[in-house]
């Protein structure tokens, strides 16, 4: 059954139209002298709220070490398939990192595909990928819009780490190594 919207009958002043137009013109005139509500962008920048989802970046731990272990979960979860990782192995002779075993050889995020959904940050088991405050990204070519590993670390910088999971693991291995053999 159609739903009928009951409309109130128009008053005389409404039907004359002109009083209504004049009232409207009063409103627009007020706006004419009201201060601007826009932001003059390149000079003025908006305050970025907490939890803002900007450009996805790779971060390092406070000791400047790579956190990503190239588990490729972000690549898997990425809805537009913007992430492309080439996994690599950390050689056994790299004393401080060998126990992590795995690190990305190449890590690319195609910002022409990225939809800033934040699922990669959500899924990351190593807290290595974060959508940070950067929101303005430009380039002249498609290739420029693909952030490679170096660029991702440059954008990401260092974030505090609560766990130092791999350090704990290493110290446990060393403690056991001394105790057992």
């Amino acid at each position, binding site marked *: 059954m159609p739903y009928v919207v009951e409309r109130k009958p128009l008053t005389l002043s409404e039907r004359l139209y002109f009083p209504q137009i004049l009232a409207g013109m009063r409103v627009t005139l007020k706006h004419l002298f009201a201060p601007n509500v826009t932001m003059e962008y390149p000079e003025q920048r908006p305050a970025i709220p907490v939890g803002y989802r900007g450009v996805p970046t790779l971060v390092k731990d406070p000791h400047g070490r790579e956190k990503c*272990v*190239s*588990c*490729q*979960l972000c*690549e*898997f979860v990425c809805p537009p398939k913007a992430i492309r990782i080439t*996994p*690599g*192995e950390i050689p*056994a002779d790299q004393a401080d990192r060998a*126990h*992590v*075993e*795995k690190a990305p050889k190449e890590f690319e995020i195609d910002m022409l595909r990225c939809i800033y959904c934040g699922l990669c940050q959500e899924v990351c*088991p*190593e807290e290595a990928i974060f959508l940070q405050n950067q929101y303005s990204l430009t380039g002249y070519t498609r290739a420029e819009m693909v952030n490679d590993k170096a660029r991702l670390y440059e954008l990401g910088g260092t974030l505090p780490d609560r766990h130092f*999971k791999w350090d704990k*693991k290493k110290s*446990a*291995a060393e*403690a*056991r*190594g001394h105790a*057992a053999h």
Partner: protein
Amino acid sequence: MIAPPKPDLVTVNIDGQDIAVPKGTNVIEAARQLGIEIPHYCYHPKLTVSGNCRMCLIEMGTPIMDPATRAPIMDAATGRPKINWIPRPQIGCATNVSPGLHVRTDSPLARECREGVTEFLLINHPLDCPICDQAGECKLQEHSTAYGRGYSRFVEQKNVKPKRTVLGPRVTLDDERCILCSRCVRFSKEVAKDDVLGFVDRGSYSTLTCYPGKQLKNNYSLNTVDICPVGALTSTDFRFKMRVWFLKQTPGIDPESSVGANTEIWSREGAIYRITPRQNDAVNDTWMADSGRALYKQVKAADRLLAPSLDGATTANEMALKAVANLLVGRTGPVRRDDDAASPAHRAGAPYQGSVALVGSGRSSVEEQFLTKKLADALKTSAHLVSRVGPGDRILVSADRNPNVRGALVTGLISKLPAQQLTSLAADIDAGKVKTVVSVGEDLTAAGLSAAQLAKVSVVYLGTHRNATSDAAKVVIPTLTVFEKSGTFVNQQFRLQKFAKAVPGPAGVNDDLITLAELVAAAGGGIIPFELGALWAAIAAEVKPLALVTYASLPATGLLLDATPWAALPFCEGETLHFKPAAAANA
């Protein structure tokens, strides 16, 4: 054939459902037939039962028998026999069915037991899932989802063990992840017959290791990686290369020998990452040789032929085909773009029969061999084939290293077994009878033709990789590897098995079937479809043993053909896992 004796069937009741299974079946297999999965780690259907993981604990009971009548006592309320449930759980893998056996696989007790086992396993298991290659196909991961508690009550330090122990040239062990199921130990001993693995030390120090001075280096070592329920045994080749959930699985056939082991080809975006066995209880069980797993590397090999060439210079596909067409009808002189092989004028005055020799291949698929046969017919000649013989290992690599010699017999490309050397062809060349040799994927130099003999004739080479023959050839047309095309092989049991295209071929390289069909047309053999469905209609119509077969309807485990017409041929293979040579079988 003698019909197998009817197995004694035993009726058991699992989770309230009755099922009749053969005597000797264990509870895990019986439950599997009902679609009930009993979680397990150490049990493997193709290995002996060791019963050390304790994951498959179930509750079981037997009907209470009346001591006087030896008949089950019935419960008046339900009308079913009363069951005497054993108060303690039993392991399903080592419990064989007995008449009237009752099993509860999902009772509170069974669940509690599995949760306890899972918690103990996870005490020392590292949180490696993000970097572990097994993640995604890990039994421990799966069962932890079902039976894990989600957090750890273990407050002590986790056990720390070596992370990259090299067990052999192809296998790396991550000790921390090992749950000591001993599948790999049993496999090495029972299937590979190379008993090098074992556990040393006790308690949480227990470690998988090789016997001192030995390595896990037999040709079946990577099967231990496949059967490892966790990520402890890893393939050094595949380690950290790609997460398994990205990989697409395509059924394939191992082309390294006439066993025709069924394989699974794992690829992503046109790149193959690994090859694993695909279960076929009549051929390879769940195993395959390491050598067959490395074959995918030929797809991206540096010496791959990627473009047709004419007199050593790269040319267009069309020009190469025209050049071959000219050679086939004995026309000399430069190739012109407006040459039309199909026109009668082109063929007129070129009765060139006998001067073109054709070398087929036991590595070609049945479809390609059928087209090769068509080409031979059109050229009014018969194809030569080259046999390859190597030592058989009595497991899954046979002495006949061609995957499809029997296919050539079935399609009629050859009528007797091929020799290892092309001596008759060499003699014909020396005698000047042969002017052109068309080789479908065979390296003629390796088959005994000297460089001087090749120089006397125009060689047309269809092949995947560069070799002495492609260097000496007048025309080279690149073809696809077995991973880039679909087709069928006939293995040593005369089992017709199909394989599918796992990755696309290099840009510009035509499917072998297209190239062969065009050559047949150029040789005056008429138009033959190269699309598999239509081609199989033609094959089924012409090849008697393959009548009624279609490519689409071939079962995944293959179709056994009638081998009797070729029973008298002296095949070179010895015994393998599921094959006995006819001579031995008759003896």
